[in-house]
């Protein structure tokens, strides 16, 4: 199959890989770029584990062709931390014990980050609604929503 050129910025780094048309964004990230933070759970858009930010909005990378992401800025869970300093949202997940097996965590973090970028004052209802497309097989939803709520409260105080 023909490889086609692609211009894409991943976690701030501009890249121009050549990809086959049937390469999904998830395969590009995991198999080609070895960014294995986004996970393949179901592969059909149901579980949320593969979620990445595309120009600030959460998308299912397993159902997004790499070519469809041409010209966009992608943020994966690897891109949340600034150097060795974790993003406050990541720290909040740690502080609240929001990580059990960890498989859903990167997707949860990404969608929560996307929500807070759009709406830094999101309330409990919005947080739950935003995360409602994510499945945590350990059923640890309470700790996850608490972690996001705590981050909203913390960032309010800081301002």
């Amino acid at each position, binding site marked *: 199959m023909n490889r086609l050129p692609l211009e894409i910025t991943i976690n701030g780094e501009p890249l121009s890989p050549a990809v086959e048309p049937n390469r999904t964004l998830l395969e590009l990230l995991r198999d080609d770029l070895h960014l294995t933070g986004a996970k393949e759970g179901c592969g059909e858009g149901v579980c949320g584990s593969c979620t990445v930010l595309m120009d600030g909005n959460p998308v299912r990378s397993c159902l997004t062709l790499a*070519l469809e992401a041409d010209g966009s800025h992608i943020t994966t869970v690897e891109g949340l931390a600034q150097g060795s300093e974790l993003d406050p949202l990541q720290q909040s997940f740690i502080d609240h014990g929001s990580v059990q097996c960890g498989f859903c965590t990167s997707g949860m973090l990404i969608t929560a980050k*996307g929500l807070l970028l759009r709406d830094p004052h999101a309330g409990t209802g919005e947080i739950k*609604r935003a995360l409602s497309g994510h499945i945590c097989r350990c059923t640890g939803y309470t700790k996850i929503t608490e972690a996001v709520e705590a981050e909203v409260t913390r960032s309010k105080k800081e301002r």
Partner: protein
Amino acid sequence: MRLPAFAYELPRDLDEALELLKTYGPECKILAGGTDLLVRMKQGLTKPTHLISLKALPELATIQESGGLLRIGAAVRLADILTYQPIRDRRPGLYEAVTAIGAPSIQHFRGTIGGNLCQDNRCQFYDQSNYFRGARQTCNKAGGKTCFAWEGGSDRCHSICQSDAAPVMIAMDAQVLVQSKRGVRNLPLAELYSGVGERPLTLLDDEMLIEIQVPDSGSGTGTAFEKLAYRSAIDYAVVSAGALVRVEGNRIVQTNLVIGAVSRAPLKISGVYEILKSRPVGDQQVLDEAGKAAMNAAGAFIANNVAQPTDYRIQMVSVMAKRALKRALERALSGSHTMEEK
């Protein structure tokens, strides 16, 4: 799961897209958000040789309103419908339906309104992996000669239209604009659906859905959408209902009720208007009668094509119909169309 191989086409304008559609016809598929198509390709349910991406066609992604006509481009993202204030303010039924699609903040940033309306019909025996389907004979929809959803088998496919946007948009008398190299045609949204499970859309191989047009039904009109699903996100409807009710004074003068997720096409319940016609708005019994009529009409179509028992779904048709009609009526009476926070 990997995608099978295909060629990727990125037309730069609508004309180029229509030319590609004409060239490749049944061999190609239009790629908008991909949240339905790519899943079916992974499952081996459709094998297009070419995908035509709508990524570079911003002209299909605009919402405009002029002279009371709301015109929504087929490639408008679901998220953009939710943030378009006039829809939220004056067409709450449509807002509710789009909210119910997929998962908020995920599909909403990729999924499109045209994609939701043009998604393929679904069935629990068909929308499965090759591995799952390999355990049985091939069904009608997959090119075989049987139906597992219909008790005793059937020579027709009993898959269902699972669009959440379609029932309420049909209730709102929406029209669609369909285009090909041969020209443009305008038809009621209800006629986009063929009622044939194997091929649920009436679109020809070289045609493409361009725009959905929703008329303003004027003051005294209310719309509502109800969806029964086990989870608030991701799940397809067990039963859904879209309704439009118009009142003049204290009389009901128009009622459109469309039941979703029960038959091959969204099911318009024509008898309901006869029941509600000219009845006073305070008549509580009339909604019970309407719900029962919807149940009787839909009952004949319901097959074992989703995980829930058919008897339960038949009964829930009356509940969903009643709730949708009741809320649409309340909104019609409040006159302001506005959506009260649930």
